[in-house]
C-alpha cells in the first residue's frame, strides 16, 4: 500500500518559475526515502507540497488517502496531525523548555495533562533527552535542539515524518547521532522522507534515494543501489 502517491504534479510559483515538472512518485508505508539534488532542484517545494505549505498547480497528491491539493486552508490542520515535520533550523519556541516544546504539540490537540506527560517523557527518552527536559533551547546544543524538534514531530504518532535537511547545521558526528534517532523511529514503523545535501549520510544508510534535477526525478535508486553505483 502506498502511503504517499504523487501523480503528474506540477508546481509553478506566482512569479512564473516552475519548480516541479510532471512528477510521479509513490512511497510505501514504513519506507525511508532520501531526496537529494542540487540547490534549487525542487526538493523543498516537493516536500512542502506534502504537508500543504504549498499547493500543487496541477496533478494530484494523496497523503494517507487525503487529497492534499483539495484541502481547504482551515482544514489543513487535519493533514498536519498525520505528518511530523523537522527543519534545519529546529523551529523551537525559545521561551519554552524542551518538555514544553514537545508538549505543545499535544496541548493543541486537547489531551489530558497526565497523558501528555507520559507521552512526552516517552518520546524524550526515545531521542535521548529525558534528563534535559527542563532545559531551554538556548542551553541545548544544536544536536540536542534537533532531537527536541524530532521529539515534537513524532510525539502524536504521525504516520509520516518529513525532514528538511535536519543535519544541515550539525557536525558529522552529531549528524550521525541524529540519523540513529531517525532510523530508530523508522524501525518503529514511521515513514520518513528526508531532504539532504549530506551524501556521506545517504551512502552510509543504504536507503531508497530519489535524485531530483531541475524539477524532475532523474533517478530513483532502490534500497542499497545508491552507494554501489556512485563513486
Amino acid at each position, binding site marked *: 500500500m502506498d502511503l504517499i502517491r504523487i501523480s503528474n504534479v506540477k508546481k509553478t510559483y506566482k512569479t512564473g518559475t516552475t519548480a516541479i515538472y510532471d512528477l510521479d512518485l509513490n512511497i510505501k508505508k514504513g519506507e525511508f526515502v532520501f531526496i537529494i539534488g542540487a540547490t534549487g532542484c525542487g526538493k523543498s517545494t516537493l516536500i512542502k507540497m506534502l*504537508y*500543504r*505549505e*504549498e*499547493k500543487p498547480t496541477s496533478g494530484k497528491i494523496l497523503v494517507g488517502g487525503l487529497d492534499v491539493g483539495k484541502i481547504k*486552508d*482551515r482544514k*489543513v*490542520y*487535519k493533514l*498536519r*496531525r498525520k505528518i511530523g*515535520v523537522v527543519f534545519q533550523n529546529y*523551529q*523551537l*519556541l525559545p*521561551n519554552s523548555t524542551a518538555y514544553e516544546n514537545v508538549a*505543545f*504539540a499535544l*496541548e*493543541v*490537540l*486537547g*489531551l*489530558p495533562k497526565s497523558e501528555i506527560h507520559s507521552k512526552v517523557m516517552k518520546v524524550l527518552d526515545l531521542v535521548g533527552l529525558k534528563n534535559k527536559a527542563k532545559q531551554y533551547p538556548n542551553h541545548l546544543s544544536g544536536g540536542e535542539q534537533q532531537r527536541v524538534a524530532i521529539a*515534537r514531530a513524532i510525539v*502524536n504518532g504521525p504516520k509520516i515524518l518529513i525532514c528538511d535537511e535536519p543535519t544541515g547545521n550539525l557536525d558529522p558526528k552529531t549528524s550521525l547521532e541524529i540519523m540513529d534517532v531517525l532510523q530508530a523511529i523508522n524501525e518503529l514503523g514511521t515513514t520518513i522522507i528526508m531532504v539532504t545535501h549530506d551524501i556521506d549520510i545517504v551512502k552510509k544508510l543504504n536507503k531508497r534515494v530519489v535524485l531530483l534535477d531541475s524539477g524532475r526525478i532523474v533517478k530513483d535508486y532502490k534500497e542499497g543501489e545508491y552507494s554501489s553505483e556512485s563513486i
Partner: protein
Amino acid sequence: MKAFRILGRNVRDSFKSVFRNFSLSLASISCITITLIVVAVTIILSFNVNNFTTIIEKDVTIVAFLDVDITQEEIDEVYDDLIVLDNVDKDNIEFKDKMDTTKDYMKSSTIFKSIMSDWTRDENPLQDTYQIKVTDTNLIHKTAEEIEKIDHVDVVKYGEGMVEKLVSAFEVIRKITLIIVIALIIVTAFLIANTIKITIMSRKREIEIMRLVGASNINIKLPFIFEGLILGVFGSIIPMIITIYGYSALYAKFKGQVISPLIKLIEPTPFVYLISLLLIAIGMLVGMFGSSRAVKKYLKI
C-alpha cells in the same frame, strides 16, 4: 471535556503571553488607556450637553392668553380644543387664573404689591392663561399658530425666535458630539488593532509552529483573541478610575452646575458607573477585534 481543556489552556496561555511579551503588552495597554481617556472625556461631555439641552427644551412653554371676559365654560372649551392638537403634551397643560398671576407679581416686587393689592377679579386687567408644554420643540412655531386660532385665545407667546435658535443650535451640538464620539471609537479601534498587530508580528514564529503541529485555526486564534481581551481590560482600568473619581470630584467642585443654574451636570451615580461599563466594553471589544484581525493575516497559506 476536550473543548474545555483547550479553552482552559488558551486562557492560561493568554495570561502567560501578556506577561512574557511585557514591553509590547505595555505598549498596547498604554495605547488603549490613552485613547479610552479621550473617548471617556468626549462621552461625558456629549452626555452632559445632551442632558442640559433636553432640560432646557423641556422648560420651553407656550403661554396662551385668553380673552379678558372669558367664562368658565369657555375656558373648558379652550382646554378641549388644546388636547386634540398633535404636538401638545396632554399631561402638561396648566390653567393659570389671573388672580394667581397677580399674586405672583405681588410677590416679586413691592411696587406691584402696592398697585395690585386692591384689585378685584372684575377690575383685574390681566388675562387668564394656559401654560402649555410641547412634545417636539422643533414644531413649536406651528403649534403656537394652531393655538392662536382657537376661539377665545387672544395672544400666544413662547419666546419666538430665541427658542428656535436655541433648539437648532442644540441640535447641531448634539450631532457634532455624536460624530466625534463615533469617530473616536473607530480611530481607537484601528490604533489598538495596529498596536496589537505589532505584538503579534513578533510572534509570527509561534503561530507558524502552531500551524505546523496541527493546531486548527480557531485554536490558534483563540489565545490571541483572549490576549486582546485581557489587554483591553487592563487598558480600561485607568480611564475607568479617572471617570469615576474625576467626574465625581468635578461635579462636587462645580456643585452640579456650570456657569448658570440652567446648565446642570448629570449626577455622578449611576452615570459614572455606566460610562465605566461602556469603557471596559469598548476596550474588550476593540482588543478582541484588533487581535483577531492581526492573527488572520498569518492563517492563510
